[in-house]
Each structure stands twice: as C-alpha cells, then as structure tokens.
C-alpha cells in the first residue's frame, strides 16, 4: 500500500516539477509572498501629519503647539489660516487631524476657566485618525499637568508632591517593544500556507476536467491510496515551506522562534492534513477547476485575512463570529504559530488547537474518502 501511495506521490511531484510555473508557485512563491507582505504589513503607525489653526497667537498657544509636536508621533505640516483650508486638506487625504486654537486661549487657560481648543480628526481612516486623536489628547494632558504644576508652584505648593503622582510600570510580555512584525510574521506564515491547499484543489479538479482521473481510477489503486498519494506532495512542500519561513522570519525580520521544532513539525503536518482534507472535499464536489479554486478562495484566502485573527483579534469578535472563525484551520494555525514563536509554549497550552485540527483532518478526510467514487459517473 505504501509503495502504491508513493507511486502516486511521485507522479504528482513530477507534474509539479515539470511545469516551471507550478514549481515556482508551490515552492518559492509562499516565501516570496511572506517577504513582500511582511515588509508591507508588519508596520506600526509611527507618525501622522497634522495642521494647526492658531487664532490666539500668544506665547501660551505657541507653547501648547510646541508640546503637541514635541514627539515624533505628530508631524506639524504647517499652520493654516482658516477652517476651510483644514476642510480641504482633510478631503484630499493630506492630513489626518487638525487642531484649532480659538481666540482667548491664553486668557482662559490662565484664568482656569476653560480650554478653547478643538481637535478635528479624519475618521475615514480610523487607524491613523484614532492614533492622531489619542496622541493629541496625551500631549494635551501633559500640557495641562505642566500648567497645573506652575500654578501650584506659584501658590507655594511643593512641585515634588505634584510631579507624576503615579508611576506606571509597563511590561509587555512576549513582544517587549510591541512591534507588529513579531506577531504579524508568524500569522502571515499560517495565512500564506493556505496556498498548498488551493494548488491541490486546482490540481485535482484539473484531472477531473481533463479526464486523466479516469485513467487513475482504472489502476489497481485503492481510494485511500490514491487520495493520500495526491495529498502527500503538498504536505511535504508545505512543511518544507514552514521551515524555510522560520529562516526568513529570523534572518530578515528578526523574529525568533521560541518553541520546540519537533512540535512545529508535528503541528504543521496536522495543519496541512486538515486544510488539504478540506481542499480534497472541495475538489470532489467541484466539476471544474474554476469552481474548485473559487471555492478554495472563499474558504482559504479571504477568511485567512479577515477572520483568522491576524489583524483583528478573535477575542474582540462577537461570539458567533468567533465560533465561525475557529472552524477555519488557518485560525488554529495562527494561534499555534504565535504560541510557538512568541510565547514558546508547548502542547500543554496548544492542545486545544492541535486537537481541533486533528478532528477536522479526520472528519473531512474520512468524508472525502467516502464521497470519492472510483467509478465513472
């Protein structure tokens, strides 16, 4: 049986190796994608452009502006003269926020009667807009604190009493500098390695479309041997890609792997078996390559990006959506790879994800073998 399965595997490998396009797509393209996407996507918002409309033009208003632009987070593009100019810059996507200081700012702040400042934020890009808003608020609080300190000193209250009354000791575990690259790269590996499943769906549907499946059916191969032989090359190249990705992650992006390599091997096989079993089932139901691949696209590519938790944490989804997301192999693999890369945890934590994948693989695999008819329609 093993010999016969291996024969099918060898045949599949030959198909891949003979076509330069396929060879690239199956072996090198996941790595190329990983490198490109990690460079583009694993970035943090570092600074956003803003403008200021200062209608007060007093030393205090200038000192407030200095406070606002004291860090690298907010970049003052220029001073503007009117609200309509702000409107125009926001509409053209040139700035993400604006600060309007009304006349009487100095007077009111000195008299502690108000803070006539308006912050205008571009909500059409909520990530950058929210960033700008939070940072402007932060700088404003600091400015107010400083004003309060000065007022207190003037009244003879000891400034040491007032200075930063709380000492916030912040520690970020697993990712001390809170760099997006550290958790996005492992997750991207999982998402991109949906490609083998898509290739396989297409390859199998192709044999159906061309009628070469019928020839295979006429051989003494058992159903299981045939399907296992079809899956194996993709499991092997997939696992190889996982390990090559480790090197890429380390060398190019400085993302360390903290887990156990053997466990990574086992869980990768677990993932590929689950995702390929689903791909197999898709290929059995689809009559053409285009149907099989569009199916695979809807099951692997889109959800990989939108539902796997790579950019949007699972925990923040509504419970039903979280359920749905957990039923995708890629979601489980994202959690596994983040656990192994960042936390260095083992099966004692990841057993739930591993088990889910195993159950999926067995369930869909069995179903596929049962549904697959070695007869002609």
């Amino acid at each position: 049986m093993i010999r016969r399965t291996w024969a099918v595997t060898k045949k599949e490998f030959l198909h891949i190796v003979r076509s330069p396009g396929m060879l690239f797509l199956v072996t090198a393209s996941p790595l190329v994608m990983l490198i490109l996407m990690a460079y583009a996507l694993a970035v943090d918002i570092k600074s956003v452009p803003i403008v200021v409309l200062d209608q007060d033009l007093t030393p205090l208003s200038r000192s407030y502006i200095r406070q606002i632009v004291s860090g690298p987070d907010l970049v003052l593009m220029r001073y503007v003269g009117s609200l309509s100019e702000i409107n125009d810059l926001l509409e053209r996507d040139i700035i993400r926020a604006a600060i309007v200081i009304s006349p009487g700012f100095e007077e009111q702040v000195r008299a502690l009667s108000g803070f006539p400042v308006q912050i205008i934020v571009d909500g059409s890009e909520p990530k950058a807009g929210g960033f700008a808003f939070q940072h402007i608020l932060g700088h404003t609080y600091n400015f107010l604190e400083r004003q309060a300190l000065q007022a207190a000193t003037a009244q003879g209250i000891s400034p040491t009493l007032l200075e930063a009354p709380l000492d916030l000791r912040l520690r970020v575990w697993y990712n001390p500098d809170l760099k997006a690259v550290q958790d996005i790269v492992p997750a991207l590996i999982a998402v991109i390695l949906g490609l083998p499943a898509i290739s396989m769906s297409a390859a199998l549907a192709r044999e159906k479309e061309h009628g070469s499946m019928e020839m295979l059916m006429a051989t003494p191969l058992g159903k299981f041997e045939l399907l296992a032989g079809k899956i194996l090359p993709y499991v092997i190249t997939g696992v190889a890609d996982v390990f090559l990705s480790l090197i890429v992650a380390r060398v190019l992006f400085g993302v360390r792997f903290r887990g156990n390599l053997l466990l990574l091997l086992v869980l990768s096989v677990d993932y590929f078996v689950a995702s390929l079993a689903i791909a197999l089932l898709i290929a059995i139901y689809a009559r053409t390559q285009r149907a099989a691949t569009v199916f695979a696209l809807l099951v692997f590519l889109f959800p990989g990006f939108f539902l796997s938790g790579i950019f949007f944490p699972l925990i923040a989804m509504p419970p039903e959506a979280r359920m749905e997301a957990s039923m995708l192999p890629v979601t489980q693999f994202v959690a596994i790879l983040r656990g192994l890369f960042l936390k260095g945890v083992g099966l004692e934590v990841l057993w739930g994800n591993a088990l889910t994948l195993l159950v999926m693989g067995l369930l869909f695999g069995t179903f596929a073998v049962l549904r697959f008819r070695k007869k002609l329609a």
Partner: protein
Amino acid sequence: MFQRIGSLIVKEFIQLRRDLLFVILILLGPASELTAVAYATGTEIRNLPTAIYDYDRSPESRELAQMIANVETFNVIDGGTDLHDATEMLDRGEVYMVIVIPPRFSDGLHAPTTRPQVQVILNGAESAAAGKALEAIEGTINRYSTDIVLELSAFPSLESLEPSARVWFNEELRQANYTIPSELGFMLYVVALWVAALGFSRERELGTLEQLLVSPLSRFELIMGKSIPAVIIGYFNFLLMLAMTVFLFKVPMRGSLPLLLVLAFFYILVELQRGLLISLLSETQQQALLTVFMLAFVDMTFSGYAVPVESMPLIFQKIAFIFPIRHWMIIMRGIMLKGVGLEVFWPHVVVIGVLGIVLTGVTLLAFRRALGD
C-alpha cells in the same frame, strides 16, 4: 459583428450554466463572505479580558480599578487571587492585560515623597489588541494622575478643561465604515479578475482555443466576447455588495451614487485588462488561478485594509501607486464617507485611466503574440 459577439457571450453563459457550483459561488460567495467579515470585524477592538489584582483594597485603589473597568476597551474578569494564575492565563491567551495595584498604594498617593506604582502587564502576542490596550490604559492612568494634580493645585477639574473633539467623515470612528468599503472594493476586483483570467487559459487548456481562432470571429470580437461576461458578473457583484454595504451594514453614502456607479464600471474595465493579460500569458488554468491568487495577496495589502498605505515603507507606497486598487479605495472612501467628488480625487481617476490605457496596450501585444495574427 454584434451578432457574432452575442453568440460568443451566449456560449459563455451556456458553459457557465453547466457549471452550477461555480455560478453560485461567483454570484453569492463574495456577498456572503462580506457578511461574515463585516459581522466579525465591524466593531472596534473592545472587551479585552483584563485581570486586576488589587493588593491595596483601599477606596483609592478601588476607584482606579473602577475607572479601568469603565473603559470600553477592557472587560474586567476574575483572575483569582494568585498572581501566578495570571502567568498561565497570559500563556493561554485568556487574558490580555494584567494590572497589579501594590499594597500601600493609597498611602503612597498621599505621602509627599513617594510615587505609588501601578504595574501593567500586556499580552504582546497580538500586537493589534495590545496596542489598543496600551493606548487605553495610558489614557486612563494619564487622566487619573492629571485629575490628582489638578485636584492638588488650584486648577478646576479636568471636565471643564477638556478640549472639544470632532471626528469628521466617520463620527464615531467606526472601524466598519473603513473596513467594509475596503472589502467591497477588494472582492469586486477579485471576481472580475477571476472570471477574466480564466477566459483564454481555460480554452487553451481544453484545446478549444484553436476552434475559436479558426471560426469567423475576429480577434476583437473574441476579446469582447470574453470580456463582457466578466464585466457583467463583476458589476452584478458590485451592485449586490454595495446595496448590502449601505442598507445592511449602514455605511454612509454621502456622495454621488451615479458617480460611484460610473467609476466602478470604469474600474472593472481596468482590472479586466489585468485579468485578460494573465489569461493570455498563462499556459494552464492552474497557472492563471495561482497568479491571480498571488496578485490578490498583493492587492489586499495595497487596499489598506490591514495597515494604512501611508504607514508602509516608502518603496511600498511607490509600488502601491501603480496598483489600480489603491486609487479605487481612495475614490470609494471619498465618495462614500467624505461625500466629495471629482474636484477632489480627479488625480486618482486620471491615474486609473492611464493604468488602464497602458494595460490595454500590453494586453493587445500579448494577444497578438499569444494567438498569432
């Protein structure tokens, strides 16, 4: 000529009817995917499980804990009494933030020389959630300490000194108003590209391309016959998803709807050229499909869904410039959220137009090479 193109289109649709699964998937798949995604990622990141270990148990520490619990970003859960439990919960991803208020926190608050500590441990394994939590906790602590300073000095309370804030275009900073149009734009393009990319590669692989070439169809008619079904399917998807976006997901439609409809058509035509190009250059369907997949990854990146393009490295911002989807997103968000028109985003329309012309030229060259003339 129109009759010949018409019969080719009829042939395409007959072939589609035989492939029912594909038709269902291509017509309803994107819409159902949009629903799932809008539902799952439409809200802001909030309710992150947070464990507070209050070893002080004073009115002040409870006030701080309450203040944190009131923040929408956090959902305070029972972390037990032992800090060791927190370690395991962090490992398992059950808690995203741990806050430790040490004993004698309140004493320190009132003593003139000491600054009481508050320890915060963040789960950095998901940087998006951690970043949000960091922003929120810093804001909360900042407010808390500003409050104390203001209280001790002669300043009035913070409320009267708060700057007023206005968010334009998306008043509640609703994430969904950004992500749903992104997904809509992305799926629209994938469908058009998908159908177009299969046009010729499928015929070639199945050996029927020669038959078409020896038929009285001219090259132009052949291209039209292949393109029109792709445009029809793509545009149908766009209308369906746009209706869902506006009526079901309540994304505002502030600008001119006719303008959006016209530009969408124009945009599909440009993406179609890319699809035809792939179709002509691929030997097999499999190659065509996997090329579309790879392109889809790249386009997804440049749609700005995950990260604003302006935050990417400069080289990627430059590359994004030649991807039609980048400009299309700006146009769509401009019309839907900002309610602006051509007078604001005309440069992007021009870029898409130029890209379309260049792509059409390359496609024609490829067509001559691939099919012989």
